[in-house]
């Protein structure tokens, strides 16, 4: 990791980031550096600030103290900077957030035509390419409401990928899915990881973490409590809170 970060700009750097919701502090002195191509899995109990952390990276939440730097661009209140970062960072949500009034294909081509200024035909070619990648090109003409949860989430991933992002953020992408649909989404994420995408995933899918993560981060009460490679993290956690959390989610 140190090798990579010296030759290229880190994908994400967070330095002493603090955030409050009203009086309640959700992020406490977060320091995090994610190298280009690195896959980071973030886990922790609910309310620990993990979703807020990755939402700060694409400015869906404002941080109130500290610095966030994404791909060499400082994330501040400069609209041009925010737009630039959002174009390079893709995000997949727990609730999919597909646009229900557009077909699957229109969901994918919208930003390509409006933001990337592609012609509709070009945009549709790109979109079909990514829909094939997530293995549902045959659903292109349907509306999101006609698809299963797993299919919708794969469309949401394809929609993000259309923008050719350098970083992908996943905010509990499988938490709203029926059990039998989780693996179809994880398969897509695994293949994305294997292609070298920089990924930050908030997830409780520990099998996924073991398989693709370069680093697992455990958060609790707004702090990064522990971070290490998956092997150490699962087999030899050092912090008591991590041990407790792992015993709770792995006992079944």
């Amino acid at each position, binding site marked *: 990791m140190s090798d990579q970060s010296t030759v290229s700009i880190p994908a994400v750097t967070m330095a002493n980031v603090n955030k409050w919701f009203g009086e309640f502090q959700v992020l406490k002195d977060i320091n995090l550096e994610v190298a280009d191509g690195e896959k980071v899995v973030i886990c922790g109990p609910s309310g620990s600030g993990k979703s807020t952390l990755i939402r700060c990276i*694409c*400015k*869906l939440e404002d941080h109130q103290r500290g610095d966030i730097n994404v791909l060499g661009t400082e994330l501040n209140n400069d609209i041009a900077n925010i*737009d630039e970062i*959002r*174009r390079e*960072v*893709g*995000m997949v*949500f727990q*609730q999919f*957030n*597909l*646009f*229900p*009034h557009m*077909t699957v294909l229109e969901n994918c081509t*919208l*930003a390509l035509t*409006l*933001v990337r200024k592609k012609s509709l035909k070009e945009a549709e070619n790109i979109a079909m390419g990514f829909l094939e990648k997530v293995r549902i090109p045959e659903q292109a003409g*349907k*509306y*999101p*409401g*006609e698809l299963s949860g797993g299919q919708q989430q794969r469309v*949401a991933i394809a*929609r*993000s990928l259309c*923008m050719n992002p350098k970083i992908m953020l996943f905010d509990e992408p499988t938490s709203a899915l029926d059990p039998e649909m989780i693996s179809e989404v994880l398969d897509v994420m695994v293949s994305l990881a294997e292609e070298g995408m920089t990924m930050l995933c908030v997830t409780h899918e520990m099998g996924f973490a073991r398989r693709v993560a370069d680093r697992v981060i455990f958060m609790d009460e707004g702090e990064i409590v522990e971070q290490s490679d998956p092997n150490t993290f699962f087999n030899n956690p050092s912090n008591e809170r991590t041990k407790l959390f792992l015993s709770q989610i792995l006992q079944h």
Partner: protein
Amino acid sequence: MAATNYNIPPQISFSTKLKQNFFASPLDCLISVLCVLFFATVIYQFVDWAFLSSIWSAEDESLCRDAGGACWSVIDARHRIIFFGLFPYEEHWRSTLACVVMVATMIASCFSWFWSAFRLSFLWVLGFGSFYILMHGGVFGLSVITPERWGGLALTIFIFAAVSIIGMPLSIVLALGRRSKLPVIATLFGLFIDFFRSLPLLTILFTAAVITPFLLPGWLLGDKLYRVIAGFAIFFACYQAENIRAGLQAIPPGQDEAGKTLGLNFWQRVTRIQLPQAFRNSLPAIVNQFVITFKETSIVTIVGFFEILASGAAAYGTGKWTVHYIEVYVFIGAIYFMFVFSLSRYGAYLEKKLRVGNV
């Protein structure tokens, strides 16, 4: 007898359903029979009055007294007043053509092909332009007819179309303004909307027609008709803005967030993600507001305009026709019904069409 097929749901025959729903008990039978008799009588009475025992042509007016049915002679003789008001007789073709143009414009804008800002503006500039040229004249050798002499159906349609076309964009601006993240803007828009919603339409029209001439400089005043339309449009927009705001509030916040992470800017998110969904969400209320507005155009009579209802009163108001006011109001009622019913059917069709995918 064929073997029962268990792969299909059990079929219930029409007669069984009828029996279950309307003739299950003696009391049910009694109520059903009474209802049928009542409605049959009412419908027969109306059909007899309107069609079987009625007199149709103006020449036969003398027969009306003994016929016992409707005397449609009054419509035959006086329909031009109902349709055209005080518009000069020899120019009635202009008013007719103007109505046709305006109705065609309204029908055309119901087709989704026209639903882009450019096509809709083009259509309406063309529609309104032709309407104005036909009604007002002054070009192409048409004599000038000032708005005070416009009347009847053409005026009703003009007021409705103008109020809708000014009020709709305004309502979107008001709804977005009220939801602004800047507290000052949100409060100002909120006060504006609530101020106009707490006034009766009558007051607003009176103010526009009678009081504004004392307040505004002459060059800003314009014709009374345009002031009244402006006041009406603001009133319409304030109500419609609340309908649209309700639709906007029903959209989950994740929709806007998804738009943000795709790099869409504010206006792209508003026009492509928020407004289309807001319209879908509050379509019944939005259509309802149009329906109410069409009917409320009759209030402009109060400030001296001869829209269709006032023209109707003028149509039966003289000589031998004074006894036939029922026929005139039924006729005008039918015209209102035609417009409003088409509007609500179109609303129902839209709801069905847009529900695709929102399962």
